[in-house]
Structures are given as structure tokens and as C-alpha cells.
């Protein structure tokens, strides 16, 4: 017997996940959602009036470990006539994947999400020393991380692993690879429920890209491989196939103009400062963690690329969509791939650099016809939601500036 209620997980244009509970037997009729909410900015509702319909994607229906009385499903936003709404980032990804499928390929993807566990009273990291991969530190917080893993697995989200990450308080969640649409939904659900589980455990969590100057940031690494039938066409003769090279070339060609999709607030650009594990150069390399696209060459099944630029707090659907569309463009135009960076990409001379600030990224995105071509009106709406941030970041004096200059000048 199906549950009485249905929890529909959906995201606004900034990528924040919301949960709407609706009567299961009425869910397919759609639930009204105001555009003011779906297009809310970081600090205020959108001034746009009107409403959309939230509809469940029944193919994503899964057990709900968080409620005995409700099913769990991912939803999309549609217009009154049932057509996908331009306010719906998930639909933008669906559109890109349909294009991909028409080209004869399907994408397998997997995400790695980093986030910080916080003391809710101080809002500081739960611990201060570095414990990357520490089984002992992991044991100390297993009451939380174990709960996250178990409940996500109960929700049929294929969690692969969890471990403490490099910075104090930071952890990583790995999700097993899956068809790209599923992978995006898994990641959205994981980010939402991980935070909820942490909070219900008496702690707090943040996916903010760079909460502290002196700590590493939190990234979203997206592993991707291309398949035709049962064959991974990124792999050829124990190496990367020419197709994989074109795919990477496409990602690199559009990385600068689409950087905003993966780093959608001013804070995210601090990840790129200095030598870090976040890329600054538009570059690729073989098993190199300093580049933007890391190629991992293994068995046929395991050969893949890892896009390392996006931040953990981005709109996951749009970040995925931008990366996949770029890759497909590289395949279609047979874009040539530069030689790989060997060594430290931060110090290597490369053709291009990623935007170092939100202002640069906004400029690049505003001028991107590629973004409009592949994301449609969603690209304009996304830019519009972010425009107040541009005005804020330009207009605001920061505590850093006061500390550094106020008595010196």
C-alpha cells in the first residue's frame, strides 16, 4: 500500500533543496509553488510574481527513511500547461541529457561532496586539527556519519564511502556512479538529508565553499564517463579514447564562461586562492589533483574524468548540465586537447585561468552565448537571481578591508 503522504524534494534556482509534503493521491496533479520562492536570492524572495507547479518524477520514488508515513520522490517545476519551467534547474539538466542521448551516448556520473561539521553554539568546525582519512577521528563522529550513510542507503542512494577530509571539521561523502540524472538527484538528496541528519544529531553542517580563510574549501568533484551500450567509450587501448579527449577539450573550452554555474556566490572564489586542491588554471592532467579536469585511467569500467572546479554549495543540476553540455560540444566540434599538465598546474603556464572573483565570473557568464544555447532562458534567470550579489559584493566594505587598511591609511 502506498504511503499517505509524499515528500517531494525539489531545488530552487540557487540549488537549495526544499521538501514539500503532499497527499500522495493528489501529488501528480501538481503543487503550486510561487516563483518568488523558486527564484529566491540568497537574502530575499524574488520580486517576480506568479506560480509554477511542482510535479513528482515517479521514476525517482524511493523508500523514505525519515518518515514512516510518507514516500520520497524528486520533483520538477512545470508551467500550467505541463511544459518544463525555465525556473527549474533539474529540467535544464534533463534537456542537456536528452541532447546527449540523441547523440548516442549516455553519461555515468558520481559526485564527491565535501562539507564541514560545526559546533552549533560557536558555528566553528567541530575539531581543529587535520585528520584526513582518519579512521580514529571517523570513529569519534561515526554516530553522525554512520547515520548519514545508513539512512541514505535506506533511501536507495548508493553511498560509497565517507571519511574526515583535510580541514578540521571537514568530511567527504562519496556517492557511487550512476546514470547522470540519477547521480544528480542522489547528490541533491544527499546534501539535503546529510545536513538534516547532522542537525538532528545536535550539530550543524555547512556546504559553504570556503567558510574559513585558513582552511581548505569544500568542493564538488564530478566523476564522469561516457557509454555506448555496455562499453565505456572514454577508454581505448588502456588509455583515454579520442572521444574522451574531445569531451575534455569541450569542458576546458567553456570552463571560464560557465564557472558561475559551479561557483555561484562571491565566497566560492576564495577556494581558488593560492596553491590548493581547488583548480585555478583551465587545465587537465592525468591523475593530477592540481588541475581542473583530472583524467583517471584504469580498467575499461573505471576510466573516467573528474571535474574538480565546482563548489559544494552550487546548484548541482546546473553544474552538471554545464559540464555535460561543454563536453558534448567538444565531441561535436572535435575540439583538440592541449597536452596534459604535468606537475603543479597552479604554477604552469596555461592558456586560460578560471575567474578569480565573482565579478569576473558574472561578466564571463553574461557574455556566454553557449550558456543561452544550452540552458535556454534558465541561464538568464539564473544570472538575474545572482545579480543582487554582484551589487552587494561591489558595494560592501568587508571586515578584512577594515582590519588591513583602516589605521594604515
Amino acid at each position, binding site marked *: 500500500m502506498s504511503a499517505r503522504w509524499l515528500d517531494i524534494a525539489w531545488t530552487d534556482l540557487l540549488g537549495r533543496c526544499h521538501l514539500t509534503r503532499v497527499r500522495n493521491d493528489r501529488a501528480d496533479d501538481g503543487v503550486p509553488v510561487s516563483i518568488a520562492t523558486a527564484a529566491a536570492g540568497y537574502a530575499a524572495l524574488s520580486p517576480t510574481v506568479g506560480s509554477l507547479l511542482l510535479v513528482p518524477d515517479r521514476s525517482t520514488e524511493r523508500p523514505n527513511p525519515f518518515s514512516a508515513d510518507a514516500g520520497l520522490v524528486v520533483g520538477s517545476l512545470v508551467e500550467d500547461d505541463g511544459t518544463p519551467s525555465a525556473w527549474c534547474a533539474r529540467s535544464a539538466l534533463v534537456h542537456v541529457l536528452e541532447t546527449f542521448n540523441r547523440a548516442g551516448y549516455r553519461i555515468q556520473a558520481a559526485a564527491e561532496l565535501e562539507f564541514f561539521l560545526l559546533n552549533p553554539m560557536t558555528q566553528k568546525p567541530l575539531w581543529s586539527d587535520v585528520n*584526513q582519512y582518519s*579512521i580514529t577521528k571517523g570513529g569519534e563522529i561515526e554516530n553522525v556519519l554512520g547515520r548519514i550513510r545508513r539512512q541514505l542507503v535506506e533511501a536507495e542512494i548508493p553511498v560509497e564511502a565517507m571519511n574526515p577530509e*583535510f580541514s578540521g571539521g571537514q568530511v567527504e561523502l562519496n556517492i557511487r556512479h550512476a546514470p547522470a540524472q540519477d547521480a544528480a538527484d542522489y547528490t541533491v538528496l544527499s546534501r539535503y538529508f546529510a545536513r538534516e541528519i547532522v542537525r538532528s544529531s545536535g550539530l550543524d553542517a555547512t556546504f559553504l565553499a570556503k567558510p574559513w580563510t585558513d582552511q581548505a574549501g569544500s568542493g564538488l568533484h564530478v566523476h564522469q564517463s561516457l557509454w555506448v551500450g555496455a562499453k565505456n567509450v572514454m577508454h581505448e587501448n588502456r588509455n583515454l579514447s579520442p572521444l574522451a579527449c574531445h569531451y575534455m577539450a569541450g569542458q576546458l573550452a567553456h570552463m571560464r564562461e560557465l564557472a558561475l554555474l559551479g561557483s555561484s556566490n562571491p565566497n566560492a572564489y576564495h577556494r581558488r586562492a593560492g596553491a590548493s586542491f581547488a583548480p585555478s588554471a583551465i587545465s587537465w592532467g*592525468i*591523475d593530477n589533483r592540481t588541475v581542473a579536469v583530472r583524467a583517471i585511467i584504469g580498467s575499461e569500467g573505471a576510466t573516467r574524468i573528474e571535474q574538480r572546479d565546482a563548489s559544494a554549495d552550487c546548484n548541482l543540476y546546473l553544474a552538471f548540465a554545464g559540464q555535460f553540455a561543454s563536453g558534448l560540444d567538444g565531441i561535436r566540434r572535435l575540439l583538440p586537447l592541449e597536452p596534459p599538465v604535468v606537475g*603543479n598546474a*597552479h604554477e604552469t603556464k596555461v592558456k586560460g585561468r578560471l575567474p578569480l572573483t565573482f565579478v569576473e565570473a558574472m561578466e564571463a557568464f553574461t557574455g556566454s552565448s553557449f550558456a543561452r544555447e544550452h540552458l535556454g532562458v534558465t541561464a538568464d534567470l539564473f544570472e538575474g537571481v545572482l545579480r543582487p550579489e554582484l551589487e552587494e559584493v561591489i558595494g560592501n566594505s568587508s571586515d578584512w578591508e577594515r582590519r588591513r587598511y583602516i589605521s594604515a591609511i
Partner: protein
Amino acid sequence: MSAKKTSDDWLMSEVTAGRIDTVALSFADRLGAWRGKRVPAKDFVEHGSTTLGFCDGMIVCDIQCGVIEETPFSNFSTGYPDLHVTLDPREARPMGWRPREAYVFGVPSDRHGTSLSVAPSAVLQSVLRRLEAVGLVVTTSAELSGAFFDSDAKPNQAFTADEERHLPFLWLNALTASWIPVRYCHPGFDPGSFRLGIDELSPLELAQAIVVAKGAAKELARVEGGDAIFMTRRPGGAEPALLQVTVTLKPFQELSTELLECLLGEARPLLYPSVNAMRMTDVPVVLSTRGEVSILTVSASAEADSATVLATVLAAVGAALDGVQTPGSRIDALSRSAQLLESYWLRDWLGEPFLENSIPLFEHEAALFASAVTDWEIERYWGVA
């Protein structure tokens, strides 16, 4: 490792019965810290032998997980590629203090499956192979000492009270339930201190058992708000925290205590890997004979990586049996660790990559200490000088 042998399908049956749901896929880093990822047990047993990738900087990192640019194996210039650890469900053991968890260790390798020459466990395997090739059968046991502290930073007084929930007893039970053949745990001389005896195991199993024992001690203590301390020298003249390894060689070998002490004196940073640990002035060696076997006991720092200690001690045995005659000079300070490369026998037995990637970390620690103004200096000279 153990009191109770692993069976090929132990993990599978535990997972099927719902008694185990998580496995810690593990390796030990250069300093003996327990690293890895926790994964759903069901996936692990269904998938069978699994190879996981980890940032390779973690095999040569310092005590704060920092990677020193001077370590040639991994730094920003190498791009921090993956190291690989292959883990076999048949090697899994229960994590005795976590009822629903198991753990399994692997030896770090490159992407072609070749053991990493910078990984202590791989170096230990290499040393053992050489000893076995000349017909030696090696078994090892150990005594690990340290101290438990309570949340108020005072020594844990566990042994003075009749309380089964006191830390040392919880620890003892946890290790036994993890199939580690613990022989004893008794109080040391100072409040809070303990000595844990582990019975005979193969060297690699013992190395892993010590990693687990230290990790379990810390976790159990921290859950109570305290800590387990393995720092070698503590304030107030407390007895040092040591890892005393006993090596049994069969058949009997003619060895010289003096020669072994000289050889291990050349290797001191590997046995005493911090500024604090190098305050210990000797590498005590005791040789004895029991029937047809030779027994060698060596004291290293409890901070030291157990695989490194065992590899170094066994390498010294191998070098002595090789007939090495001209020991080099003893290393008295961590800042002089570059001398490790001057020892022919260390280069020969442990390999130059292992030494070349250890030395920058020792020198880095020494340089950090040299540039630090200590509490002691402030207390002694502030206002007087």
C-alpha cells in the same frame, strides 16, 4: 591476526545476518596513523576484493597531515595522484568496540599494483621476504605503553578502582573482540600509564594490530572526553611511552648486542621520529636464547610507526647476518636525519625512496621546533633576561 582465525566467509555471514553494516577500508600512513574510508559492508562483500584510491600525499604526510614540498614522492609538483589500496573481504576482522563494524587493512600500491616503496608496510614485507629467502622464520610480539587522561587532563586512575567500565578494561575487551591476541594490560609506574602486551603474530599483522590498538585507545578515551597519549616523553619525568618489539628468529642466529645497538643507533629517527621522542638517548637492545631460537627485544618510541620499527629492527638483523662490519655514526638529533642515507645497510634493506621521503619530514619537524619559542624559555627567561 589472532586469537580467533578469520574465516573466508566471516564477513559475508555477519553482513547477511545483519550484524555488521560498515567496514573501515584501511591503511597505515608513514607515522602509523590509521587512515581509510568507511563504506557500507554489503557493497564490500558483494563486490569482493576492492581497490580504493586515496590522495598519495597521505602516505608521506607529517603529524598534522601536512605534505612537505621536499618529499619527492608527493607534493604539489607531482600533482598528488592516487595511491591504491586493495582490500580483501576475507581479511576483515571485527572492530571490537563498535558492534556493527569491521575493518580490513591493505598495503598501499601504485595503479599497476606494485607496492609503494615509501609505504612502511610494503618496506616491512620486502625486508621479510629477504629474511625468509635465507631460511629465517620470524615472529614478533610487542609491549605498547602510553597513558590515559581524563577530560580534566588529569591521569585516568582506572587501575586503582574496581570498575569494569574503566578505560583500560574497555580497551582490553575491545582489542580482544577485534581478534587481537592481547596478553595483558597493567598499570605503568605513573598515574594513568599502562602497558599492553600483544602475543606473537607475523610482523605485518603485529604492525596492523598496534595501529588498531592505538586508534581504539584514542577513540575510547575521546568518547569520554579524555585522550590516550603515546607522546614519548611527558612532563614531570613520567616514564616514557614506548613500543617494545620482541623478534623471535628461528633457527638460532649468532648476533651481537653491541653491533645491533650500533646499527640501530644509525637508524634512530626511524625509531624515535619526533623531537620529543629523540630526547630518549638510547636504543635498548636485549638478546637472549630459548632453545633453538634467538630472541631480540628492542625499545622504540610508542609514537613510531609500528611497521617502520619492525622493518628497521629486522633490517638490522639482516644487515648483521650479512656481515656488515663498519657501522656509521649514531644520529643524535632529528635535524641530522640526512645521515640515514649514509648507512649502506639502511639504503640496502629499507630502500632509498623510503629514506629520501622520510628525511625531509624529520628535518621539517626539527626546523619547526628550532624556530619555536617554547613555554620553557618564556618561564625561565622572561623578565630575567
